[in-house]
């Protein structure tokens, strides 16, 4: 934390923040217990589906969650289903093939593997498995029939994508799960319930055959306590609204709603009294000017120190006060949206805004934050 960051203010302004809840012992922290296993909010879950409105950072959260789950010697697979190579970009590795590749090492000896699921490859894989039709599958693809099948019946594509994730969850070698957990970077919130609810999706399709049996097997995992669907949001109107809609859709479809991950949370920097004053434009400009002068930010003439009088037309005090007012307005807006999220009554995790953007290093920091808040 930055020196002097007002931790207390943080807490006062945001009584529901996980930090506060944990500091005040309102929720259990997650220390190692005697058996050496940590308590998390999702002990039974092996398939973590991460959705969110576009632009909220769901790929980042999926990647960080995979790292968090892998921490301490676990093996985790993170899959993407939208053919956009977002995972390769975020882990800074070459584009992923339709094969599981190790993309990161987690703290304390864990491993994260990644897979970009391709519906065509998955369909050919199934045809081979059920009908011994690999060569025919290749011919079908040349003909455009695979594209056709997944296009006229979007449910087929979704079954193939979710089916592959389900297979990774169930895969065993010598009676042991190959992966401790699977994380899916899923389609956006607006489509998530439909995407996961494959049984309904294939209702109009073949009543027997590989797709139907696959759909049934997928639902056994996805509609069970093995799965949690987490929604990523920002503290802005549209993403929060979509999160509420998403929770409603998932519940209506009988799918297990997981936590809400609030991304890009900005620290409230003003103490409550100052926050209120800034909102009303009543900050004490004379006091600010005195302070700025005392630390040499401005000269007695009010100009920015070191600017050689070049920026005379800028009123530094007024500009700082204006930035403070905008910050206060933003904090107030975020608080309103936080209240809306609170009404959903889901476990909530917060990730701070990173001014420098997200690189691989930041991914490990986010993973640690998700762990410390009990998501993994």
């Amino acid at each position, binding site marked *: 934390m930055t020196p002097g960051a007002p931790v207390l203010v943080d807490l006062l302004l945001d009584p529901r923040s996980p930090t506060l809840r944990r500091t005040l012992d309102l929720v259990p922290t997650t220390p190692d217990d005697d058996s050496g296993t940590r308590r998390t909010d999702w002990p039974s879950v092996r398939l973590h589906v991460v959705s969110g409105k576009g632009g909220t950072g769901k790929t980042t959260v999926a990647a960080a969650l995979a790292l968090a789950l892998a921490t301490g010697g676990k093996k985790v697979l993170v899959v993407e289903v939208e053919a956009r190579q977002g995972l390769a970009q975020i882990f800074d590795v070459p584009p992923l093939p339709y094969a599981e590749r190790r993309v990161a090492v987690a703290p304390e000896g864990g491993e994260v593997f990644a897979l970009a699921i391709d519906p065509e490859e998955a369909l050919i894989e199934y045809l081979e498995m059920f009908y011994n039709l690999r060569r025919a599958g290749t011919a079908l693809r040349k003909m*455009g029939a695979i594209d056709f099948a997944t296009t006229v019946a979007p449910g087929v594509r979704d079954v193939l994508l979710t089916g592959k994730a389900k297979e990774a969850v169930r895969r065993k070698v010598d009676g042991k799960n190959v992966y401790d957990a699977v994380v899916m970077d899923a389609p956006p919130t607006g489509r998530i319930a439909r995407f996961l609810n494959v049984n309904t999706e294939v209702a*109009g399709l073949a009543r027997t055959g590989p797709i139907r049996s696959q759909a049934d097997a997928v639902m056994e995992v996805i509609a069970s306590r093995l799965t949690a669907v987490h929604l990523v949001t920002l503290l802005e109107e549209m993403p929060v609204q979509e999160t509420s809609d998403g929770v409603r859709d998932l519940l209506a479809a009988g799918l297990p709603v997981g936590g809400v991950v609030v991304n890009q949370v900005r620290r409230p920097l003003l103490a409550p009294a100052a926050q209120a004053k800034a909102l009303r434009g009543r900050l004490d400009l004379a006091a600010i000017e005195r302070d700025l002068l005392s630390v040499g930010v401005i000269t007695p003439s009010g100009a920015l120190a070191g600017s050689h009088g070049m920026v005379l037309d800028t009123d*530094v005090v007024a500009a700082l006060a204006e930035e403070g007012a905008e910050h206060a307005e933003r904090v107030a807006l975020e608080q309103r949206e936080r209240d809306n999220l609170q009404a959903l009554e889901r476990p909530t995790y917060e990730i701070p805004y990173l001014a420098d953007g997200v690189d691989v290093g930041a991914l490990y920091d986010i993973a640690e934050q998700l762990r410390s808040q009990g998501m993994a």
Partner: protein
Amino acid sequence: MSVHAEITPRSPHLDIDALLDDRLIKVIVCCGSGGVGKTTAAAALGLRAADRGRDVVVLTIDPARRLAQSLGLTELDNDPRPVAGVTGAGSLAAMMLDMKRTFDEFVESNADPERAATILANPFYLSLSSSFSGTQEYMAMEKLGQLRARAEAEQSWDLIIVDTPPSRSALDFLDAPRRLGSFLDGRFIRLLAAPAKAGGRAYLRVISAGFGMFTSVLSKVIGGQVLVDVQTFVASVDTLFGGFRQRADDTFAMLQAADTAFLVVAAPERDALREASYFVDRLEADSMPLAGLILNRVQATAIPDLDAGTAAAAAARLEQASGTAVTAALLRIHADRVAILDRQRRLAERFTAAHRSVKVSAVPAFAADVVDLDGLRQVGTAMADGH
């Protein structure tokens, strides 16, 4: 001091007012990846153009609830409604695309009632018109074509501003309609449709052992009924539409005309700028007229010369010297802002270095959501000042 000078000092300026005042421009398309403020930008441009005297219709795709309310739009609208509150000689109408209804109306106006009823009840048509990837883009194009024809016939609007669907990739807007058109006009779907069209005789001519195997596998995968639905659908629409592909091509050609202008909207974030970059290259490759880039949500500051390090150090000194906590906090708020602006500038520079001739208008981030016409006006003013 301008936002533009801070974030893209070397790019030429995009003069928004000159664009909006250009009576030769009839269509402005706002494109960009999702979550960059495209819809708000389209609405703000529409209001500003109307305030400046043009008769504008804005086609939005998926506006935020309160933005829609501020334009007087309800969810069920698929027709332009006048927006009250324009100051000046112009007028503003706005609508929200309902893709299923657009598709239904398209069928109803192109087929006799009996045939239209058959198509509208076809299960494959239902999934095609409501949940197909590419349908929203196709229907946005279709609606644009309709609005244009109506504007010319009624002399009602002289500027159409189009928001584009919130797809992951901005390129989808250009590609999806033709992809859908190609698919529906494609060889495979015609082979499947053959028996329904010609009572089986044409089918017998094209049938081969291989093709029989394909349909048999397909039946196993997607079910025989789906295939039958597709066949019926293709047979019933075949003669009506002059070909989906042809229609998509026509709209595509319209977008290449000189009276169309593309505005690429991006936030100064890595993914959004990468998409903007693809899109700019693509517009050039397809000879589509790019007006410029709207760089939205820039973290502006009135005192860029007070750098992050100096501000943070001064804040630390004040905190130690028990100065006013408020001043220290204000300096930290400023330091955060400048740090964000620095990062945004580095990201924007990658774009501008690769696209030196692209004109840019930089728009500062607003503290609150835009929920009314005054807010839209502020965004419009910022766009026009953004150089």
